């Protein structure tokens, strides 16, 4: 049977779906809930409701590498500086999880990495504290100042809700973002996922992207390789228009990305099956999809099955 690039990429996406790791993912959610409750207990009226952010909230998560993020919006008067807020949350989590997890400061978040559990799983939750810009402004605008963990105590303005909104409803773009995240993860590339997300969305905004999954991916790869090294190329952060995310890559990294994508396009042109060298299926879950072990499941076959009353539309 001939190799079908679109079907293959479909399988790559399918085998990287979060549904394959439901049990593990439940543990992540449980830990995030626990941290959320602890923070609510500690900071009470100093915070607004913490909310889920990151790739899972954006539906771009892949099962081979993920963490869960929890954004914690603090009120303006809670702390006098952003750095103080960041350090206080860090100290609190460190104290709370002293014997259970490795708590560390990351660039804009506090990572809580739980020690390996009895199943051998490591759960990581990233907590992103942010402070509203002015008193009572957050519920209206959702802007937050978040700490940048450097020696000079700088911070930046962002709007996590706007970032989540920016990707809502963009199903086609999300598929390509997930494919590029899979590539990035498999090839150990150092680009930020947020960069990938914005550049793919920009490709969809600027090009007519249609056809099957491979055709869409091809157009996006061509767009990125053609545009990334242009002098004026920018990627506006939907959470802060003065943030140019394109600048998170230096010119060496941009050229490297251009070459990577050119290589993918050339080599797939040469031989379609070369696609497998760049986007691998998650072998762990491949069998589940192709196997014929699936069965109709009945929980009680010895007695009559009575369905519930139900509403249909």
């Amino acid at each position: 049977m001939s190799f079908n690039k679109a079907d293959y990429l479909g399988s790559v996406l399918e085998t990287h779906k979060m549904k394959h790791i439901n049990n593990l993912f439940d543990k992540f959610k449980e830990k995030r809930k626990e941290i959320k409750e602890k923070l609510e207990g500690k900071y009470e009226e100093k915070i607004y409701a913490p909310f889920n952010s990151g790739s899972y909230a954006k539906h771009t998560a892949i099962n081979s590498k993920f963490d869960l993020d929890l954004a914690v919006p603090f009120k303006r008067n809670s702390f006098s500086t952003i750095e103080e807020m960041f350090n206080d949350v860090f100290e609190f989590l460190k104290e709370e999880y002293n014997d259970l997890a490795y708590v560390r400061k990351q660039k804009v978040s506090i990572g809580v990495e739980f020690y390996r559990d009895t199943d051998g799983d490591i759960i990581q939750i990233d907590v992103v504290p942010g402070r509203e810009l002015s008193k009572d402004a957050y519920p209206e605008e959702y802007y937050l100042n978040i700490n940048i963990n450097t020696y000079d105590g700088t911070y930046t303005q962002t709007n996590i809700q706007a970032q989540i909104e920016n990707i809502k409803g963009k199903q086609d773009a999300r598929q390509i973002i997930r494919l590029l995240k899979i590539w990035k993860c498999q090839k150990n590339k150092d680009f930020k996922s947020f960069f990938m997300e914005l550049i793919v969305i920009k490709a969809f905004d600027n090009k007519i992207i249609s056809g099957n999954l491979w055709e869409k991916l091809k157009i996006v790869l061509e767009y990125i390789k053609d545009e990334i090294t242009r002098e004026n190329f920018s990627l506006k952060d939907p959470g802060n228009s003065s943030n140019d995310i394109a600048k998170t890559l230096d010119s060496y990294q941009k050229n490297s990305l251009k070459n990577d994508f050119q290589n993918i396009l050339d080599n797939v042109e040469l031989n379609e099956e070369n696609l497998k060298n760049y986007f691998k299926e998650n072998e762990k879950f491949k069998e589940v999809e192709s196997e014929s072990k699936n069965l109709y499941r009945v929980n009680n076959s010895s007695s009559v099955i009575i369905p519930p009353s139900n509403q249909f539309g």
Partner: protein
Amino acid sequence: MVKSNNKIGLEIEYDDNLLNELFEIALVHYPNEIGGYLLGKYSENKKTAIIVKQITALEYLNSPVSFKHIVNEETKNVFVKLFEGEGIHYLGEWHTHPNSNSRYSQTDFKALKKIAKGDIENPILLIVGFDKKGIKDYSFNVFFNKEVYKYE
């Protein structure tokens, strides 16, 4: 007729007359939706659901865009009788979409999710999109691993 979904490797088997029967019932209730239950059995290897018959809901509320059935005592007795007498049991649901297509709605999805929490984990859902002239399209779907898959 046999339909399958290659992704999950499951099949359904049904008699072509089933759709004719449902169309006749659909016309009686036009322009409102109507629905009921699919009954039958699973094959020995549990890979095929064999639909043997349908029962139209005995108690229900309906409109052109909704259908709600109530599983009352009379309905329960029918299920018991068929199970004990003919060895067939509940496999899933059917309902109509008058003047519309056979795509499942969010309400349908929620209904399947609710059923899957009970005795069968993979309920079948047949949706018949039709108008007065005939069946426009129909779809057999199954709830599997928290998703809905269509049989082709």
